[in-house]
């Protein structure tokens, strides 16, 4: 299929967009870095496209107390360049830098990553690890959904066809929080994650942690939290043995598939390795914690 086969709507305001979307017949398109590929592969069944590119009101990054509010047109490059995001959600920046390559970061949006609902979306594990919310608006209603409740399966979400993602709210990390994002792909750029993992660790004392959130990508139909690995981190000394155990626990919670890129077995080994790497880097001084004071 070609784009010319679709009726393309290009509204200038959110309310116009919601109006076009009201009968749920149009497919939203933001950066188009997923949609264009899907059109070529004949995977977009809708006959209309709702082009969001001209809705300037959707392009923002706002400081709002405990949250950073990210508009649906905000790209990875915007996130990478934002002082606010660097300061309060460096884990999201670390992930954004691994998406595709610069060209894709310039076009691709965080909301599009959420909208696409691929378990391998690299923007998603940081949202799970920090605790984000997705704002869904329709002509008649508006609601906010916790990221953990948003995805139902591969390309399945709670979004109704008449709803638009207008915003992703990213909960700010606190000064002193540690974090990492790891992505394993088959090359250094433009690679789909074989596995990915984001973690946020909240310190109790020096290098012991009272809170840990670890989210894994590409190991299940949706991004999932590694709950037993998280629990194993809390309030203990992270010895080398311990870090390996945490990796092992994360891997046990992973249920990846075998596909053309990698076997399930490899993915399980790699996720254990990635978790260990991240923890090791924290414990051995390769990573500094969030330092939210300078904004």
């Amino acid at each position, binding site marked *: 299929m070609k784009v010319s086969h679709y009726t393309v709507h290009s509204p200038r305001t959110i309310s116009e967009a919601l109006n076009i979307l009201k009968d749920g017949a149009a497919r939203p398109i933001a950066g188009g870095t997923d949609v264009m590929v899907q059109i070529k592969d004949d995977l977009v069944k809708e006959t209309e496209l709702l082009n969001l590119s001209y809705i300037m009101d959707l392009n923002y990054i706002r400081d709002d107390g405990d949250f950073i509010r990210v508009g649906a047109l905000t790209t990875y490059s915007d996130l990478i360049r934002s002082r606010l995001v660097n300061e309060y959600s460096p884990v999201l920046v670390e992930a954004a830098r691994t998406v595709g*390559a610069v060209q894709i970061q310039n076009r691709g949006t965080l909301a599009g990553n959420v909208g696409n609902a691929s378990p391998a979306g690299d923007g998603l594990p940081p949202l799970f690890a920090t605790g984000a919310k997705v704002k869904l608006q329709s002509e008649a209603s508006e609601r906010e959904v916790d990221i953990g409740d948003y995805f139902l399966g591969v390309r399945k979400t709670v979004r109704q066809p008449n709803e638009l993602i207008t915003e992703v709210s990213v909960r700010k990390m606190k000064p002193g929080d540690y974090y990492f994002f790891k992505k394993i792909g*088959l090359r250094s*750029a*433009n690679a789909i994650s074989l596995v990915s993992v984001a973690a946020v660790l909240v310190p109790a004392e020096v290098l012991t942690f009272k809170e840990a959130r670890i989210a894994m990508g590409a190991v299940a139909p949706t991004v999932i939290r590694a709950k037993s690995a998280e629990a194993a981190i809390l309030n203990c000394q992270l010895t080398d043995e311990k870090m390996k155990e945490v990796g092992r626990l994360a891997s046990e919670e992973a249920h990846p598939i075998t596909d053309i890129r990698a076997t399930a077995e490899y993915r399980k080994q790699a996720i254990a390795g990635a978790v260990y790497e991240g923890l090791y880097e924290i414990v051995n001084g390769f990573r500094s914690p969030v330092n939210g004071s300078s904004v």
Partner: protein
Amino acid sequence: MPEVEAVKLASEEILQQGYSYINRSYQRVDALDKVTGKIKFFSDMKIEGMLFARVFRSSVAHANIVTLDTTEAERLQGVRAVLTYKDVPGLNAYGAIIPDAPVLGYGKVRFYGEPLALVAADDQETAEKALGLIKAVYEPLPAVHSMDESLKPEAPKLHDRGNIARHALILKGDVDRAFKDAHLTLERTYRTQSQKHMFLEPEAGIAYTDELGNLNILAGGQNPYRDKMQVARSLNISPEKVRVINYPAGGAFGGKDDVTVQIHLALLATKTKRPVKLVWNREESGIGGFHRHPSLITLKTAVNDDGRLLANDSHIYLDTGAYQSFGPTVLDVTIEVINGPYLIPNIRIDANLVYTNNGISSAFRGFGGPQGNFAIESMMDEMAEEMKMDPIDFRLKNLAKSGDIGPFGNSMRNMEGIHEALSRLRNSPLWQLGKELPPKPWIRRGTGVAIAIKGVGFGTIPDYPTAAVELLPQGKIKVLFSNPDYGQGVNTGNAQIVAEALDLPMNEIEVVNADTQYSPDTGSSSASRGTFTSGNALLVACNKMLDRLRMEAALYLESTRDGIEYASGRFLIKGNESKSVSIYDLAKGLRAKGETLKFEGTFEVPRYPEPVKGTLEVPHVVYMYGAMVSSIELNTLTGYLDVKNVDLMADIGNVINPLLATTQCEGGIVQGLGFATSEELVYNQDEKPMNTNYTTYIVPSIADIPKMYVEFIKTYEQYGPYGAKGMAEIPIVPVGASIANALKQASGVRYYQLPLTPGRVLSKLHDQGQG
């Protein structure tokens, strides 16, 4: 070979006085037109009244065709022609060496994606739709997925002659006795995969019949005269009626050496009497296009207690897929490199070209070299290690010297270059780097070395490239030859050669792109032969031109041939510089008398008179050499291999254009990096290639490219134009082995199979307790 002598003398003379245009880094002559988009690729071209073609391909790998029904497609509005094998007027087969692949399939299908019918329609979508209306009914036959399967006695036979397309047995000395006396014998099996060319422009072209009734084929290709011959043969028309234009092509790398779209375009343009365009899509290029031969090689190699090689017994199997294409000569190159540039007294080579249902393997940069090199250079590394010798010392010790007799009775020439290259590698900072401790415990560093040999040109196959120069009175020299410039830069190098030979500035040299209507037959751009063949032929032509002009100048200057001399476009009386005449003025005078100053030169490529029994082209007279060291960082947690540095010291003869030669080397290294670490065409149970696009077929990205350092050893090839050999293939040949050897040093685990993907690396690390 009188002409070779003439070239040699001219070259050496100039070498002594230094060059004006050789050894200089000119930008590619077509660089500006390419980056500004002025040059239109055939895929982007439109011709008035043009039809759009698509190819109907088999959706099974091995089957008898019961029926092929095209009636519905023919009836579709907008469809102008639907052709099947019945519409091929001449030979319904193609193949660069032995035409054994059907132009349009009949009777039997031998790979998934075999072309069975052609459609031409008013637009692309109608053509696409028509494909969906063609119905093929098959009687499935069991498919042969691998060489291991193919070689079993009970395997289904792909061709009447059986599943071995070609076999050669080459013996020297007595390997079996050598093994008995050996201090150490190792036996190892190596495997390499199918690699795709992944050129940015897939197979594409346009064909039309002109007012004179000639068939014009404009298609990215590597050998316009062979294309012309293959087209004429299948259309049953005189080659005179066919014109092939091969420039520009968006990459080729061997994948456009045999015909791809040309015959199909010719059939459709002839049938419809309309211009026709055919552009394969990326998936089609993956399925229907060529790829590198997968290899399965067993080496049994022995040394004495002093670390000298005693014997090398090789069993080589190359998977040529459903048809031969360049298989026989690719096998020859593997045969030729399997003993490296080493002096080994006892040799056995048992080489086999094997049919399977895996597409069609064909030419790919290195042409069987990277496969053989991975085996022998992995073996050399392991042998050195077992002998507790430094891998560079071990190689230096066993390297042949000039005058030694090679594995095929050939005389090893100019071995000083590779000795020098290898010695220099030892001093390379990279070679020391491996010893540093990395900061993170799961990262392991390693460096690995490999050396390479690769012939230039067609070996013992008679090769008489012809090229021409024409002097235009308005002040330009036209340069004509048929090796297409598909990006490698042969046009620029040849312009420099002509500039040097005629002592004229580069802006007076005008290269005509490969076009059978104008360019004489210089043969292919393949086998690293472009510069060597057309450069030499051009030197012969330039000498003829100067010779003719000299006589005319002598007349004009009222002197004799010997009384005048030539410099920078003018003839002058020796000792009296005030009396001179420009070559362009001479040309004007001659033009007035009806004489055009166009001269053809033919070069006889030096060769041994006979190939080694069982081969078509082994050995060569001229070889290129390279020595490579790679450094890597291995992540033992994920199996991810980060290639940090690659250094290449190459002996490519005298370097015509250091910039272009360096960028060719860098390109070759990166393509080798893909071969070593990530690229592999994978088939599903139905023998359908699964990863045919850039998302799933992992070509290295710019972010994966290591730091590269390329250095050329100063050498001079007496048969080459201004001492040049060839160069495009040598950089890719040793990459696989040098990286695998680095990985061994880093991990303690030796890998015998490419590519070294994270999955493959990690699984073996775990098996060996290194993960």
